[in-house]
């Protein structure tokens, strides 16, 4: 591009026939250029780099995904019926292959002070609303995939809540991937911004029709003003052949509260970066996660919590169930700055291994530079306990069902943290379904 040296991601960023979104917006052009430079500079990270130590990008690069070009217009509500959760009452936004699709969405009535729209549409109608916000949380210097997302900026969900606005029903984003003529990459970019005292629930669901090969590289920038409250459920059930990359960048001002539940079930290769930064005191961040990894599946989590200011609390509670030849990585890092006294941070990662061939690399780290803090971290990698299994079997329950019940029991804590009954039920069912067919060796 621009006559410069090719990158391994040129196919991701190939020029669009109809030009880039927001063309002509100087600030956006500048951001895109800067992101592209960063992509070039970073090249393809190798496994020598800490953040990529356990995760090879080889297959992703070799695949050479093409940029999503055409809008999928043929889909009708009937086609996605099976993907909807009827009991879930939400303001529904459907995106198909990275593109906001109004015909499948059902926004309903939004209260005053709440704006829910597509990124593309907003860049056309009111770009100034995005000017400070786009890359406002992710920052100027970005990790590779966030930079790629910025360089290939296309569409996404934008949720803006004015000061004190309260949204009762959740906003549900369904990101649907459908197979195309060739393997494609979609790079949705979401911006969610809650002004002081605003409250909302956000549900993101990444799903697919069919089992096609594609890549999703999503970035979500979340900013919470003072006293704002965001509940956020994120369910990733991509196609078993898909690559899924996501970067969640969260910034929290004083007294704000974020509760995020991250469920990772699908995809062949899923990488999640969660980056949290506190900018005001007494903010709370609660990150929970559940992942399942079976044959030909990698679940890779990187969590960075930056306690830059005093008196904030963060919890990271991640649980994994691995079976077959499943692999997972949990790389959690909490940094407490020198002045961040009264920090309360707890990180835990527990893994249940159902087979000897499954593998997990778990590495929670605390970097504490203040002295008056309460910090802990713990990690376990274990198997199903025989005495629990025996207890169930002694009551007539078959070994496979008993195993499944114990796995569900292990997962329960996280599923329970989801913010709607309908979602809990749907996730429970999906987890159960996966465990039912999970190979135990």
């Amino acid at each position, binding site marked *: 591009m621009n006559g410069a040296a090719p990158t391994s991601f040129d196919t991701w960023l190939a020029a669009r026939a109809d030009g880039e979104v927001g063309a002509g917006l100087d600030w956006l052009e500048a951001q895109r250029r800067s992101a592209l430079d960063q992509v070039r500079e970073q090249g393809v990270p190798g496994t020598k780099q800490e953040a990529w130590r356990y995760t090879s990008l080889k297959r992703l690069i070799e695949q050479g995904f093409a940029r999503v070009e055409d809008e999928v217009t043929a889909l009708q509500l009937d086609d996605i019926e099976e993907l909807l959760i009827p009991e879930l009452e939400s303001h529904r936004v459907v995106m198909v292959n990275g593109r906001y699709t109004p015909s499948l969405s059902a926004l309903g009535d939004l209260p005053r002070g709440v704006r829910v729209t597509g990124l593309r549409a907003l860049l056309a109608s009111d770009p100034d609303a995005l000017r400070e916000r786009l890359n406002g949380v992710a920052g100027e210097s970005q990790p590779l995939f966030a930079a790629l997302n910025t360089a290939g900026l296309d569409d996404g969900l934008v949720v803006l809540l004015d000061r004190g606005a309260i949204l009762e029903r959740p906003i549900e984003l369904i990101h649907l991937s459908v197979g195309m003529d060739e393997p494609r990459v979609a790079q949705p970019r979401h911006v969610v911004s809650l002004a002081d005292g605003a409250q909302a629930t956000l549900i993101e669901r990444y799903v697919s029709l069919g089992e096609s090969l594609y890549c999703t590289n999503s970035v979500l920038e979340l900013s919470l003003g003072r006293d704002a409250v965001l509940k956020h459920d994120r369910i990733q059930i991509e196609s078993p052949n898909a690559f899924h990359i996501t970067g969640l960048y969260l910034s929290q001002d004083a007294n704000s509260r974020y509760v995020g539940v991250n469920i990772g079930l699908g995809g062949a290769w899923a990488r999640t970066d969660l980056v949290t930064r506190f900018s005001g005191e007494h903010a709370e961040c609660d990150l929970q996660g559940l992942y399942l990894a079976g044959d030909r599946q990698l679940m890779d989590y990187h969590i960075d919590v930056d306690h830059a200011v005093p008196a904030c609390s963060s919890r990271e509670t991640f649980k994994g169930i691995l079976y077959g030849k499943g692999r997972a990585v949990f790389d959690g890092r909490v940094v407490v700055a020198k002045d961040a006294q009264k920090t309360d941070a707890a990180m835990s990662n527990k893994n249940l291994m159902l087979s000897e061939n499954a593998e997990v690399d778990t590495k929670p780290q605390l970097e504490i530079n203040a002295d008056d803090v309460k910090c802990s971290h713990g990690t376990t990698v274990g198997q199903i306990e025989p005495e629990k299994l025996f207890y169930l*079997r002694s009551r007539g329950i078959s070994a496979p069902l008993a195993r499944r019940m*114990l796995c569900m*029991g292990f997962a*329960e804590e996280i599923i329970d943290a989801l913010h709607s009954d309908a979602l809990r039920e749907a996730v429970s069912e999906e987890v159960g379904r996966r465990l039912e067919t999970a190979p135990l060796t």
Partner: protein
Amino acid sequence: MLSVKGLRAKVGENEILTGLDLEVGPGEIHAIMGPNGSGKSTFSHVLSGREGYEVTAGSVTFEGQDLLALEPEERAHLGVFLAFQYPVELPGVNNTYFLKAALNSIRKARGESELDAVSFLRLIKEKLKILHLNDSLLKRAVNAGFSGGEKKRNEIFQMALLEPKLAILDETDSGLDIDALRVVADGVNALRNPERSMIVVTHYQRLLDYIEPDRVHVLAKGRIIRSGGKELALELEEKGYGWILEQEQAA
């Protein structure tokens, strides 16, 4: 109904059961008493199929079937039930779901239809009453955070629900307060019938005041060294095990 002959079992290199014989007829209640570490729980576990024990000799026949050849769940399907000395906590596993899975697994294995949610709940409420258990326990995880007494009552509650043919109660009385002991004993007595046999492992004569046994056995060093009627329990209460062990040694 249950016939145990010359049963020997090892854990690792240690022989724990050293030639145990026991015959239990239909409808009979047998009490097993014996010093700590004599093998009572081991015997209960071997009967119900827990892993980790190697049976080196002898046989266990239950209603004509070789019990030792069966998986734990298959034994449960035949009607064997163990009330654990130390009930296991299952965090995250909902009690109601568990009970339903157990009951329906057993019904299915017996060719009966599964119970629907309504009949199941009705049944469960009825049994809860017998054990004076609060139905809030149903919403909780199996045994998780239950008090010692609640755990024991929960075992008998499960027994009441699953209606086994052979129930093995391993020290169900220990850790129960006086009232709870009464409740549990009443629960057990309510389940007494001419087809249902029970093996009641206990250290205390008091339980046997409530649940009157047909036979009392002394298990020591891995085998039954003395059997008698319920008066044997009284004698043990009074004199301890020393005298039997001495007589045994002399013989």
